[in-house]
C-alpha cells in the first residue's frame, strides 16, 4: 500500500479519536456530543475499511456501540457513563498503535522493531515553503532591478543560474502541492470490492475524471467523506442480483465516483442505481422523531428533505452492523464538505438510485493558460475554451481585453485568442502572448472573487502577479451587451 496513504490514515484516525474524546469526555454528555463522537468513530471505521485494516474496523465499530449505548442510557436516566467510553477509545488507540508497527512474516506485530514513519510533509508546511520561495523570487527581482545589468560576465552567468534554480524550485513545490485524483482513489477500488463481497452483491464500480488535478491537502481531506459516500452506495444501493433482475436491471449494481473541476471548484459525485430513497418517507421520519415540525417540513423540497438524514436526531438512530452507515456516514460527509467551505447535495427518488454531490472551493488549482499582456498589465487567460491564436485583422470584430477590463482602447492589441462557446466563437485581442503552460491559480476570496471575469491570481516566476481570467465569462458578458450579427 502507498506509504503516504498509510501515513494519512494514521494522522486522520488519531485526529478523529481526539475529536471523539473531546466530544464525549470533555464537552459534556448531551445528544449532540454523542453524534459528534459517532461521526468521528464512523470516519475511522470508514477509512480503515477503505484501506483494509480489519481489526480497526471491528474495534471502531465496537466503540460506536459503546457510544450508542451510552447515548441511550444518558437519554433514559441522565447518567453519564464516562468510564466505558474512555475504555472504548483507549482500545481503539491501542489498535491504531498496533497498526503502526511493522508486521513480521506471519502477520504478527513485532513491537520490538522500531517504527520509522514515512516522510510526509503537511500541506501547511508546503504552503509556508511556497510562500518563502515566492518571497525569495520577489526580492531577487528587486535586487536585479536595483543593480541593473552586470558588467561582469561571471556575475551575469551566476544570476542566470540562480534564476533558473529559483524557477525550478518554485515549479517543483507547486507540483508537490498538487496531485491527481488517480493517486488517491485507487485503494477505494479494493474497498468497494470488499464491501460488495461482504454484502453479497455484485458492483460494477467506475471512476470518472481521475486525471483531475488539485490541491493535495484538499484530496486528503476528502478521502474520508468519499469513503463514506461510496460505502453508502454499496451498502444501501447494492442489491442482490435476483432483486435487480425483478426490477429489470442488470445483475451488477452500478456505482460511479466522478470528479470534475471548474476554475474555482472541485465537484465529487457518488451515484448508484439502487433502490433510492423516498424524500417523503424521510420527511415523515424526521417529523416523527422530532427533528423538525410538520409545518416547516412541508415547505422543504426533495433535496432539502434528503439532507434531513444528516440531522443529529436521524443520524445514528437505525439498527446497525459493521457495514451499515446508520446515516452517520452522510452526516460525516456533510460536516467534512462544509468544513472545507463546500456543500453536500443529495438527489434520490424511490427506484431511481441515489446521488450525493460534494462541491468544494479550490484554494489552489493547476490550469492550462495563456500569459498575456493587455494595456500595462499581465493576465492569465484560462485555455479551456481557447481554440486558436491568430493575428488581428483590420476588419476584426474581436474584443480588446483592455477595453473590457479598463474601458480604454488598446491600439497595441494585435494578437487574438479565439474563444468558442456553444458553437459561437469570438476573439479576445491582447497586446502580447508570452507563453502557454500550466499555472497554479490561487483563490482571492471576496470581494474580488466571483465578480466579473476573475477566477484567481497567479504568482509568476519573476516575482510578478497576474489576475487569472475565465475568457468564457468575458465572452458571455460582452455578447449579452451587443446586438447579434457582430459575431465571428
Amino acid at each position, binding site marked *: 500500500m502507498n506509504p503516504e496513504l498509510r501515513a494519512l490514515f494514521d494522522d486522520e484516525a488519531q485526529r478523529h479519536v481526539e475529536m471523539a474524546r473531546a466530544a464525549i469526555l470533555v464537552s459534556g454528555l448531551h445528544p449532540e456530543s454523542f453524534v459528534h463522537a459517532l461521526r468521528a468513530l464512523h470516519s475511522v471505521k470508514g477509512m480503515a475499511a477503505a484501506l483494509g485494516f480489519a481489526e480497526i474496523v471491528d474495534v471502531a465499530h465496537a466503540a460506536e456501540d459503546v457510544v450508542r449505548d451510552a447515548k441511550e442510557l444518558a437519554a433514559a436516566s441522565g447518567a453519564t457513563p464516562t468510564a466505558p467510553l474512555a475504555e472504548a477509545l483507549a482500545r481503539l488507540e491501542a489498535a491504531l498503535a498496533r497498526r503502526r508497527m511493522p508486521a513480521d512474516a506471519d502477520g504478527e506485530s513485532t513491537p520490538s522493531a522500531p517504527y520509522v514513519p514515512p516522510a510526509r510533509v503537511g500541506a501547511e508546511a508546503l504552503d509556508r515553503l511556497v*510562500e*518563502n520561495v515566492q518571497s525569495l523570487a520577489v526580492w531577487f527581482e528587486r535586487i536585479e532591478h536595483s543593480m541593473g545589468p552586470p558588467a561582469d560576465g561571471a556575475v551575469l552567468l551566476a544570476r542566470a543560474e540562480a534564476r533558473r534554480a529559483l524557477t525550478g524550485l518554485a515549479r517543483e513545490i507547486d507540483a508537490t502541492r498538487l496531485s491527481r485524483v488517480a493517486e488517491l482513489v485507487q485503494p477505494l477500488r479494493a474497498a468497494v470490492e470488499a464491501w460488495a463481497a461482504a454484502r453479497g452483491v455484485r458492483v460494477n464500480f467506475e471512476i470518472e475524471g481521475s486525471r483531475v488535478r488539485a490541491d493535495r491537502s484538499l484530496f486528503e481531506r476528502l478521502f474520508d467523506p468519499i469513503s463514506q459516500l461510496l460505502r453508502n452506495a454499496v451498502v444501501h444501493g447494492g442489491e442482490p442480483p435476483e432483486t435487480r433482475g425483478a426490477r429489470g436491471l442488470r445483475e451488477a449494481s452500478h456505482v460511479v465516483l466522478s470528479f470534475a473541476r471548474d476554475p474555482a471548484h472541485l465537484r465529487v459525485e457518488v451515484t448508484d442505481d439502487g433502490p433510492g430513497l423516498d424524500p417523503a418517507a424521510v420527511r415523515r421520519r424526521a417529523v416523527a422523531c422530532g427533528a423538525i415540525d410538520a409545518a416547516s417540513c412541508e415547505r422543504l423540497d426533495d433535496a432539502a428533505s434528503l439532507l434531513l438524514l444528516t440531522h443529529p436526531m436521524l443520524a445514528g438512530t437505525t439498527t446497525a452492523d459493521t457495514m451499515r452507515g446508520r446515516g452517520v456516514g452522510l452526516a460525516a460527509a456533510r460536516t467534512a464538505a462544509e468544513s472545507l467551505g463546500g456543500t453536500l447535495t443529495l438527489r434520490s427518488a424511490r427506484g431511481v438510485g441515489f446521488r450525493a454531490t460534494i462541491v468544494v472551493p479550490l484554494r489552489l488549482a493547476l490550469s492550462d493558460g495563456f500569459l498575456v499582456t493587455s494595456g500595462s498589465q499581465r493576465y492569465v487567460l484560462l485555455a479551456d475554451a481557447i481554440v486558436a491564436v491568430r493575428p488581428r485583422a483590420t476588419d476584426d470584430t474581436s474584443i480588446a481585453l483592455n477595453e473590457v477590463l479598463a474601458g480604454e482602447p488598446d491600439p497595441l492589441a494585435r494578437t487574438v485568442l479565439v474563444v468558442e462557446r456553444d458553437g459561437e466563437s469570438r476573439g479576445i485581442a491582447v497586446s502580447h502572448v508570452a507563453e502557454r503552460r500550466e499555472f497554479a491559480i490561487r483563490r*482571492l476570496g471576496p*470581494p474580488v472573487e466571483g465578480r466579473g471575469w476573475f477566477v484567481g491570481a497567479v504568482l509568476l516566476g519573476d516575482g510578478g502577479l497576474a489576475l487569472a481570467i475565465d475568457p468564457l465569462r468575458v465572452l458571455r458578458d460582452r455578447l449579452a451587451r451587443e446586438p447579434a450579427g457582430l459575431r465571428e
Partner: protein
Amino acid sequence: MTVPSDETVVVIASREDELEVAVPARLVARVETIGAFVAVPGAPSYVTGIAEVRGRIVTVLDGRVCTGRCGKGEPPRAVAILTPPWEHLALALDERLDRTRVARRWNGDGDALIDENRLRALLAGNAPAGIRP
C-alpha cells in the same frame, strides 16, 4: 458610533487636514511591506488592488474609501494584514504615518474606524454612500 476609549487601534491613514482612519488592533495580524502589486479592473472602488506579501496574495483595501472619504489612488508600500476570517484582506498603510505611533489607544471619530461590522457590510455590498460597490 461610540468607540470604547480603551480600544487599541492600528492607524492606517492620517493627514493633517482630515480625520484619522484606523482598524482595531485585534483585527490586525501583522504589518508587512508588500512585493508585487496589481490593480483589479472593475473591482469595488474601496479595493486598491491585489498584492503579494511574503508569497501570499492579499486583496488590498483603501481605508479612506472604506470610510466614505476620497481614495489616495496609489499602490501602497505597506499593509496591515487582517486576522481570520479576513486573512485574505489587507488595509493599505499611509506612507506618511509615523510608524512609532501606528498602534495606540483610539480617541478619534468612530466613523473612521474599520471594525467587523463595517467589513461585513462592505463585503455584503452595502458600501457607504458614494462608494461603487
